[in-house]
């Protein structure tokens, strides 16, 4: 409907709108999210992905309670070694076998899960923050700002990121002092080296997401309701934060899920090549430790890989399912 009268003042209009929407949602009983969830439930692949992801989170959070052996710095982790069970193939005692240095592969995988989640979530959070800022500024302000930012993005897209990641990780790993940093009040230990790897991964991975967000920004900026908002005299910040960003939310969620998957793969690669944090036994680290004795301890190479594969597959499925549920436009 056309707004013919001048709005009395902003807060009043806001209040009216707010009460309006809340009333409507109450009456309809189905918010946008409920609709999306209903649509999401219909895709078997998406639900399967969600189940995998939830299982991974479960193992990551509660894993230390049911792992057969404690996590690595604890000397008890080397119990199989003391019992002379180095390089034991999978069996009833050691479900996934023991590694070439005499640890239980299953326990290593369980304890590595939390690091995988940490990597996936933190890399994605930083990447998305960076790419939303770059994409929003470039897409909204256009002209030379857009030009400069897109040239920079292009450099980050074309150049061989993995090479830079490896060198940076190697250099900065030398500067790491304490292996763990404890958060004061809640008493959670954060691995310093792994956090460093995460920061570097995020620094080199925002480019393609920034491009996507810029594209969406450009598209939404030209829509009628933004024009209407401008005519009502809304400021740039209001348009960006109240009107464009909420519209981006669904794409951001979808891309986040895929970015988590990619981040996990990248971290595994960095660790596998031997550049990872030696104090945190991530899945890539297990693969690296047993790589030279692969001919004998093949089980220590296969099972951590399956863990990576399943987790990444789960996040990819989830991302696909979410994109079907949240962006009906993109479907077919």
């Amino acid at each position, binding site marked *: 409907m056309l707004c013919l009268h001048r709005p009395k003042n902003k807060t009043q209009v806001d209040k009216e709108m707010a009460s309006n929407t809340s009333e409507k949602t109450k009456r309809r009983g189905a918010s946008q999210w409920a609709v999306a969830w209903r649509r999401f439930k219909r895709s078997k692949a998406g639900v399967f992905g969600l189940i995998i992801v939830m299982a991974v989170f479960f193992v990551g959070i509660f894993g230390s309670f049911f792992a057969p052996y404690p996590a690595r710095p604890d000397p008890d982790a080397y119990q199989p070694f003391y019992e002379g069970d180095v390089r034991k193939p999978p069996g009833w005692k050691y479900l996934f076998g023991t590694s070439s240095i005499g640890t239980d592969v299953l326990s290593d995988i369980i304890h590595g899960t939390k690091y995988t989640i940490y990597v996936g979530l933190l890399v994605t959070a930083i990447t998305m923050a960076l790419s939303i800022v770059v994409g929003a500024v470039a897409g909204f302000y256009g002209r030379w700002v857009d030009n400069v930012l897109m040239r920079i993005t292009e*450099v980050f897209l074309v150049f061989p990121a*993995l*090479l830079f990641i490896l060198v940076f990780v190697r250099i900065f790993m030398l500067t790491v002092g304490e292996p763990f940093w404890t958060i004061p009040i809640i008493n959670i230990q954060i691995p310093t080296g792994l956090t460093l790897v995460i920061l570097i991964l995020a620094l080199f991975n925002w480019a393609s997401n920034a491009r996507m967000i810029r594209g969406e920004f450009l598209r939404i900026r030209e829509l009628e309701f933004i024009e209407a908002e401008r005519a009502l005299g809304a400021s740039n910040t209001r348009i960006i934060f109240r009107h464009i960003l909420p519209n981006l939310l669904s794409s951001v969620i979808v891309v986040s899920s895929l970015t988590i998957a990619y981040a996990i793969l990248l971290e595994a690669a960095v660790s596998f090549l031997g550049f990872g944090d030696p104090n945190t036994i991530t899945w890539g680290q297990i693969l690296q430790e047993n790589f030279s004795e692969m001919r004998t301890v093949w089980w220590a190479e*296969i099972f951590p890989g399956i863990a990576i594969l399943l987790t990444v597959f789960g996040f*990819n499925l989830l991302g696909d399912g979410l994109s079907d549920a949240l962006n009906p436009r993109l479907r077919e």
Partner: protein
Amino acid sequence: MFRYIVRRLLYMIPVFLGISILSFFTMYAAGDPINIIRIGRPTVTQETLDALRRYYGLDKPVPIQYLNWLSNLLHFDFGKSLYGGRPVNFLIGSWAWETVKLQLISILLAFAISIPIGINSAKKQYSKQDITVTSVSLFGVSMPTFWLALILIIVFSFQLGWLPSAGAHGTPYLWFGNPILDEIAHLILPTTVLVYVMLAQNIRLIRANMLETLRSDYILAARASGLSERKVIYKYALRNTIGPVITYLGISLGMIIAGAPMTEYVFNWPGLGRRFVDAAMKLDFPLVMGITMIITIMTLIANLIIDICYVYIDPRIRLR
């Protein structure tokens, strides 16, 4: 056409400079590069460090060092390795060829295989074949490159003993002592890995684009005028489908080529990637910077070739 190529070349200059600046300053990322050499070698004296600093020109102001390095780079002089002091381009030369060989074969193979599969699964959307292809390719995207390589080695070289597990050449030659067959035997596993990884991406892209193209009006028109299905798809639809796929290839080339370290590391392939992992481990800066720049240049050249191919596929580009 000529103007188009020149424009693309000019376009690459800022990208090249950007990467060269980044590459140069990685050396300074954690402070003085000479001090990094000192880590783990407490016996190195101050005089030696000063001499090294002078030898590598690190006593000059940083911008001048960068310009020096850049001008040397343009003369194909990448400096000398910190270990053994041999010139970098001498070290890189033979390795670059092995990487190019591996990558080129895999990219071509991946395209040759993925186009028909992608088209077919788009043609029969939601058929059994399509669902198999899409789920398998999603699985492929989720698989760590190096892990697939590990599995292949475990199965085909360790358990079955059919193929060599490492290197690019055997001594003596494998497979009847024939040098060409020997090369093929060594290529099979690494190319399988690279092709599989690219295949998954390509098929997903081709399928998505094909689905979009098949729904456009001109395809309907082509069908309505009674052209055979084969002609509609391969002559009319494919041209519009392949464009975005090739653009994507251009963007992802950096990643594909830079992904080489993983495959090359697992197969102990004597290529740039393998050498890069060693150099980065030892923080051999001249070698690291040299390989980064060579890979960057390779990526840019590949991008240029793609841009030129693009004109043939989509003539509208030339008019712009």
